[in-house]
């Protein structure tokens, strides 16, 4: 009898607990996505349908070529949904875009062109805020876009490049906002702290290059030779493709694979080893050059070598922009303390990444300029960052 009562009690308890669980309104609502990419994809879907001319206008405002006007405000007001999704996404630490690596070079990455648009929307919104005098709001938008750049990630070399380009846009906008907010020491201190504590860059070219090595070496197989021939040409030419297919044998493909892997692994070593830009650039260019077009194995290996020198330049450029922003904040904090711009560059500031030396500092009528000491070795340009200070 006692047993029957115990069993009955356990049954009632189980039913009660199940009913409570099922009836609970809190547990019925699933949590928000824990993958930021899902939110960005929704953001892309909610970007307004605008004419091409409108997108060009947004792009020009974002790049600082045009001041924000009523049109820009109208366009951005139509993209509020997308901005809200971006705000939510940047609060989620994990971001997986779901690239189908199994498709190799045929893997589609439509999110990247949409990411470009979303970046322009976010930066234009930042510039509108700055134009309205909301400098903190503008800088918050910049920091949000910086997190977006981090989320774009380093899944592939193209993703890595897009991420760098987005960061470049962020620093360009920050430069203008800092100039306007030059007199607000508290805001500058806040930004300095945000840049110190916000997630670092953390992206590396090593990861996408490792993925690329696997994709390319998989392509250099007899059964993939037609696909490989197509990938080797910038512009498809059937005659050339047929010739590549004809000359490719298991032996030449094996040789190509070995040569390509050796060069790429050496490039990875260069990229993972701290060394001056000039040295890294020279070594990477050596690795990407010197392939014999008349030798099928060498030609194949050469066709798949990425433009390593160009990618390194892109990275150095963005690193230098970031350092220029940090250096400018210190210069302006010093100005706030001293009441005037320093005649000489204060010591211990972040350096020009190209030369590894201090930026060249020059006071101008409108503010100051930070110049790189060395030219970049790709475009042979001297980069400089002008900070125009509001009176």
């Amino acid at each position, binding site marked *: 009898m006692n047993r029957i009562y115990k069993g009955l009690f356990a049954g009632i308890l189980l039913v009660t607990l199940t009913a409570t669980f099922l009836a609970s309104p809190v547990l019925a609502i699933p949590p928000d996505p824990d993958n930021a990419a899902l939110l960005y994809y929704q953001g892309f879907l909610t*970007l*307004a349908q605008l004419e091409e001319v409108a997108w060009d206008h947004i792009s020009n405002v974002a790049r600082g070529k045009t001041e924000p006007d009523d049109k820009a405000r109208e366009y951005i007001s139509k993209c509020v949904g997308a901005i809200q999704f971006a705000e939510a996404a940047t609060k989620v630490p994990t971001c997986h875009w779901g690239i189908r690596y199994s498709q190799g070079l045929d893997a*589609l*990455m*439509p999110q990247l062109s949409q990411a470009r648009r979303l970046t322009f929307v976010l930066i234009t919104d930042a510039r509108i805020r700055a134009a309205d005098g909301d400098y903190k709001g503008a800088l918050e938008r910049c920091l949000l876009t910086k997190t977006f750049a981090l989320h774009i990630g380093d899944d592939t070399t193209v993703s890595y490049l897009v991420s760098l*380009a987005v960061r470049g846009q962020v620093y360009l906008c920050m430069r203008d906002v800092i100039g306007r907010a030059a007199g607000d020491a508290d805001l500058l201190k806040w930004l300095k702290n945000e840049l110190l504590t916000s997630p670092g860059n953390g992206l590396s070219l090593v990861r996408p290059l490792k993925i690329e090595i696997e*994709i390319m070496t998989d392509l250099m197989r007899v059964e*993939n030779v037609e696909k490989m021939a197509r*990938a080797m040409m910038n512009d498809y030419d059937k005659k050339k493709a047929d010739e590549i297919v004809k000359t490719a044998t298991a032996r030449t493909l094996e040789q190509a694979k070995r040569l390509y892997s050796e060069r790429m692994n050496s490039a990875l070593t260069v990229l993972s080893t701290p060394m001056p830009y000039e040295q890294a650039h020279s070594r990477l260019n050596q690795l990407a050059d010197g392939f014999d077009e008349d030798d099928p194995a060498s030609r194949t290996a050469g066709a798949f070598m990425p433009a390593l020198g160009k990618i390194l330049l892109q990275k150095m450029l963005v690193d230098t922009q970031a350092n220029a922003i940090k250096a400018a904040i210190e210069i302006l904090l010093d100005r706030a303390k001293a009441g005037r711009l320093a005649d000489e560059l204060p010591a211990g500031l972040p350096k020009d990444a190209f030369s590894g030396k201090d930026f060249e500092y020059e006071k101008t009528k409108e503010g100051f300029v930070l110049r790189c000491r060395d030219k970049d070795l790709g475009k042979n340009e001297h980069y400089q960052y002008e900070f125009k200070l509001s009176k």
Partner: protein
Amino acid sequence: MDKQDNEKWLDELICRTINTEKPQFDAEKWKQKYPDEYQTLISQREKTTSSRQPNIWRVIFGKSAAQLVAAAAVIILVGLLLSRDRQNPDGPAPEPSAVDQSPAKIVSMMSLRTAYQRGGIDGLDQQFRDALDVLGPTSSSISMQELLEGFNGS
């Protein structure tokens, strides 16, 4: 009750049933009684022993080590077979990619990579612009209410 207990129990049962002592084997007596058979047995045993090659692995490491080596060999073999299967050169050739015939190829890793190789970051930027032209814009923002209104015909 295991096999040994079973046999013991059977011996005792037989003894009890037929009322005899347990059968005892006297080797010395048997050798004396059957000398020819004994010699034949000894010669056969020596022949069998000399025909076996001593297994160096068993001598050095014992039986368990030999089993371990055999297991490792099987694992390596299976591993090699699996990796061969992943890159099986005799496997069916991949079907022609549908991406090549699709406008979506403008955003394939291959196209984007080529755009960068050719025109740097500006080339890539142009490719993204073209991609949006080719693939068209996304749907406009629409609220859940508007969506349901569309379905309800209201």
